[in-house]
């Protein structure tokens, strides 16, 4: 009987987790067809490939293999003109509120708000959701994986000059790297 209850509890959690991901996916799908939005989607396969690259030193090699290979999907959505960024920011935040996401950090910079939210399981980050909204700009970043090392992702983006991950810079400062 205990097993049955446990299984049911786990099933409820699993359904809950799926619902959260679906909510974000639906949000992305809502704007993906709007050609005025910039949208980029990287599959997990891409990160598996990157994780196989030969790095300069053993530490970087380990970081690549152990962290990036676990990323399942990265999506970026954005618009920097003719957009009510504040309204979209509020809409996006409402979407994830009370759905298992914890706030990692929030920043008010110039006239825009940036918020980082994460979803963890077993002390590992399974999902990062970053939303940025300003007077006339809006941006969304979603990283889904199985134990994501954000610091590794930020370091990689810096190393190869990949745009879009600059907002993760605080991770570098936080760890004193």
């Amino acid at each position, binding site marked *: 009987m205990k097993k049955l209850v446990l299984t049911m509890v786990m099933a409820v959690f699993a359904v809950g987790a799926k619902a959260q991901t679906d909510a974000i996916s639906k949000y992305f799908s809502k704007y993906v067809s709007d050609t005025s939005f910039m949208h*980029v*989607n990287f599959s997990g396969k891409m990160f598996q490939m990157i994780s196989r690259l030969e790095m300069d030193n053993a530490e970087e090699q380990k970081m690549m293999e152990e962290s990036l290979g676990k990323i399942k999907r990265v999506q*970026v959505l954005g618009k920097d003109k003719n957009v009510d960024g504040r309204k979209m920011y509020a809409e996006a935040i409402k979407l994830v509120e009370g759905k298992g996401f914890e706030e990692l950090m929030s920043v008010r910079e110039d006239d825009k708000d940036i918020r980082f939210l994460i979803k963890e399981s077993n002390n590992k980050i399974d999902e990062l959701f970053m939303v940025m909204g300003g007077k006339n700009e809006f941006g969304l970043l979603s990283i889904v994986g199985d134990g994501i090392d954000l610091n590794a992702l930020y370091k990689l983006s810096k190393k190869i*000059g990949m745009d879009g991950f600059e907002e993760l810079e605080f991770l570098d400062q936080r760890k004193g790297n």
Partner: protein
Amino acid sequence: MKKILSLGLCLCMVSFATAQSKHVERFRKDHKPTTSLFFYKSTLKMYARMQQSLQGQFDAEEFSEMPQLAEMIDGIEKIKFFLYEDWTSQQDRQLFEKLTEDVRSEGYEELMSGRVEGNQMSVFMKEGRSRPQGFVVIVRMETGYSIIDIEGYPNVNKIMKLSNLINNSSNSLNLSEAIK
């Protein structure tokens, strides 16, 4: 965001390869492209030799660590490029959607897709024995479509080294900015 797309495109091209898409070839035969370009290993080597020769004219120390084009493209066997200009009708769109599905049915997996300033790009890769065999890139522009079919892979480590070298050596000569 062009930087992400460009780097993404570079990063998708890792490992071994010996395949090009049959459906892309069939599509080309059924629908004549406005422009067709074929780059074979010999053509690519020729470009690499030209780069080496030009570089040799400058005796600057900073070039000594720069990866050679030959090293970057060593794994590429063939590149096909097809441009379809003025393909803007709904029917054209449906043909390309069908091609995308056909490419998927051949075992190509989507590595990335992106839309920047109205241009849509999808990158597919086919693997065999856990190694990439080929890549297909389909780009939808305002004025038409282009297809890039690659047999082989560039040396991504060398490309990253070059990117790093350029980014570090000069603030005014930044690869990321150049790709913008």
